[in-house]
C-alpha cells in the first residue's frame, strides 16, 4: 500500500518534471515579451510589472498587423481548400468502385515518400512562370492537395453507414446532393477536427512560404526569421513577435485541447 503510493508519487514527479521542461520555454517566451523593456534580461519568474512596450516596439520595426492578416489569409485559404478538395476525393474513394482506383489511392499514399525539398526547385520554376512568386496565392496553391486529409477522410467515410446513402439514393437524390445533405452533416465532428489540424499545420507552415516569399517575408514565420536576422539580439520585441506567431494556435489549443491532441495523435503523421 505504502509502496504503491510512493510509486504513484514518483510517477507524478516524473510527469510534472517532464511537463515543466516542455512548457517552460513557452512560458519564458510570453514572460519575456510581457516584461518592461528594461526588465527583459531579468530572471524573476513572474513578469511584473506587466507591459506591452515590447509589442509596440515590434510594431514599429515590422508591419505586425499586415503579417498577422496575411498569415490568417494563407492559413484559412489553405486549410479550407485542403478540406474541400479532400472531401470530394475521399467521397469518390469511399462511395464508388472504379477502374484505376487502387492506382490513384497509391498515388496519394506515395506522397509521403516525396520530400518537399526534392520537388521544391521545379515548383519554384513553375510558380515563377505563373507569376506567383512573392504572392500569397503562390503560398497557398502548392499546398492545396493534402494527401493526409484525403486518407483520413476516406477512413471516416468508409466507416459511414452505407444504408443512409442507399436510402437517399432510392429517394432519387444525386450523388452531389447526398454528399452535402447526408454525408457532410453526419461527418461534422470529423471534419471540424481535421479542419483544425489543417489550420494549425498551415499556420505553422514554413517551407512553402520560405520558397515563395523569398523577398517579401509577408507571413509571421518569415517576418520573425528576417527580424532575427536583421535586428540581432533585441530579445524583447523578438519575443513579442514570436509570441504572436504562436498565439492563435495556442489559444485554439487552450479551448479545444483534447480534440486537438486526439486529432494529431490519431492522424499520426503530420
Amino acid at each position: 500500500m505504502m509502496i504503491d503510493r510512493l510509486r504513484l508519487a514518483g510517477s507524478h514527479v516524473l510527469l510534472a518534471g517532464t511537463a515543466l521542461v516542455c512548457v517552460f520555454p513557452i512560458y519564458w517566451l510570453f514572460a519575456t515579451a510581457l516584461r518592461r523593456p528594461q526588465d527583459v534580461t531579468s530572471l524573476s519568474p513572474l513578469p511584473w510589472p506587466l507591459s506591452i512596450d515590447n509589442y509596440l516596439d515590434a510594431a514599429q520595426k515590422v508591419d505586425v498587423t499586415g503579417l498577422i492578416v496575411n498569415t490568417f489569409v494563407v492559413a484559412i485559404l489553405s486549410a479550407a481548400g485542403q478540406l474541400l478538395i479532400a472531401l470530394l476525393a475521399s467521397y469518390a474513394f469511399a462511395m464508388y468502385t472504379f477502374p484505376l482506383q487502387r492506382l490513384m489511392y497509391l498515388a496519394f499514399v506515395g506522397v509521403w515518400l516525396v520530400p518537399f525539398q526534392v520537388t521544391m526547385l521545379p515548383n519554384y520554376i513553375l510558380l515563377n512562370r505563373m507569376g506567383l512568386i512573392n504572392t500569397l496565392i503562390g503560398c497557398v496553391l502548392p499546398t492545396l492537395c493534402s494527401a493526409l486529409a484525403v486518407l483520413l477522410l476516406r477512413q471516416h467515410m468508409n466507416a459511414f453507414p452505407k444504408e443512409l446513402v442507399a436510402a437517399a439514393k432510392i429517394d432519387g437524390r444525386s450523388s452531389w446532393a447526398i454528399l452535402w445533405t447526408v454525408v457532410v452533416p453526419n461527418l461534422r465532428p470529423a471534419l471540424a477536427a481535421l479542419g483544425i489540424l489543417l489550420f494549425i499545420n498551415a499556420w505553422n507552415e514554413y517551407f512553402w512560404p520560405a520558397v515563395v516569399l523569398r523577398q517579401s517575408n509577408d507571413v509571421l514565420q518569415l517576418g520573425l526569421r528576417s527580424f532575427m536576422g536583421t535586428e540581432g539580439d533585441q530579445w524583447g520585441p523578438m519575443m513579442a513577435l514570436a509570441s504572436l506567431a504562436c498565439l492563435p494556435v495556442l489559444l485554439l489549443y487552450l479551448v479545444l485541447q483534447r480534440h486537438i491532441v486526439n486529432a494529431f495523435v490519431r492522424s499520426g503523421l503530420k
Partner: protein
Amino acid sequence: MFVIDDRQDPARAAIIAPAAGPRRFTRRAALRLIAPYLYLAPAVVLLVVFTYQPLVQAVQLSTVSWNLLPTAPMKAVGTANYSRLLDLPAFWGSLGRTATLILGLLPFTVLLPVLIALASRRVQGRARTFYQALVFAPFLVAPVAAAAVWRWLLHPGSGFVDQVVDSGRNWVYDASTAQAVIVLITGWQLLGFAVLVVWAGLAGISGDYSEAAQVDGATPGQIRRWITLPLLSPTLLFLVLTTVLLSPTLSFPLIDSMTQGGPAQATTNIYYLLWDYAFHSFDAGLSAAAGVLLFVGFGALAAVLVWISEKVAVHDD
C-alpha cells in the same frame, strides 16, 4: 409521364421504351461512370502538378547545368552533376550530419517517451489529461518561434539557461554544439507527441496477457520485457518512421532561421544542402541531382522500415 403513357397505350410504350430507355440509361450510366473521376479531379490534378510532375522534372533538371535565370540557357551535361556531387566532401558531410540528426532524435522520440509512458501508467484521469496537455504543447509551437525562444534561452551571458548553467558559451554559434542545439529543440518539439503515441499504444494492448502472466507468477519486470514491449513494437517502429519523416520538416526552419547551415557547415544536413545549392549557389542541376538521390535514399529507408515492421513486429491477433 412515361408511366402514364405505359398505362394508356402499352403498344406505343413498347415502341418508345426501347428507344428512350437506353438513352436515359446510358446518360445516367455514363454520369455514374465518370462521377468518381470528377470528384477526384481537383485533388489528382494538384497532385500531378505539384508533386509527381515536379518529381519527373527534378530528374530532368539533374542532367542540366543551369543558374535558375529564366533567360539563361540550360546546358545538357548528362550525369556530370551526379559525379560532381559524389566528389564533393560537403555532400558526404551533410549525409553524415543527417544521420546524426536522426539518431540524435531517437532518444527523444522513442527511448524517453517509452520510459516516461511506462513509468507513469498509474497516473490516470484528470491528472493525466492535465499532464498530457502540457507535454504536447511544444508540438504546436511555430518552429521559428521555437528557434527564437531557444536562441534567447541559450544566449551567452543573459539567456536563462546560460545564466543557470553559467557557461558563457555561445551554444548556437559554436560548431561543436550547434548540431546538438538543433537536435535538442526538435526533440523538445517531438517529445510530447511521442509520449502520447506510446500512451495510445499502451492503451491498445489488452490487459489479458499481463493478467495471465501474473497468474503464472511473472514479475512486473518480466511482464514489461516479454509482453508489453513486444506488443508495443508496431508503435515503436511507427515512431522511428515518424522521426525519419518529420526530421526534415521540423529541423529546416530552425536551421534556416538560426544558423543558415553554419557555423562552418556544422548544421548543414542534406535537406539544407539542397536548399543552399538551389537558392544560395543557384546551381539548379546540382540541387536537383542531390534531390533525386535523396528521394531514392528516402524510399529505400522507408521500404526497409516498412519491411521490418511487417516481419519483425509482434501483432496482437
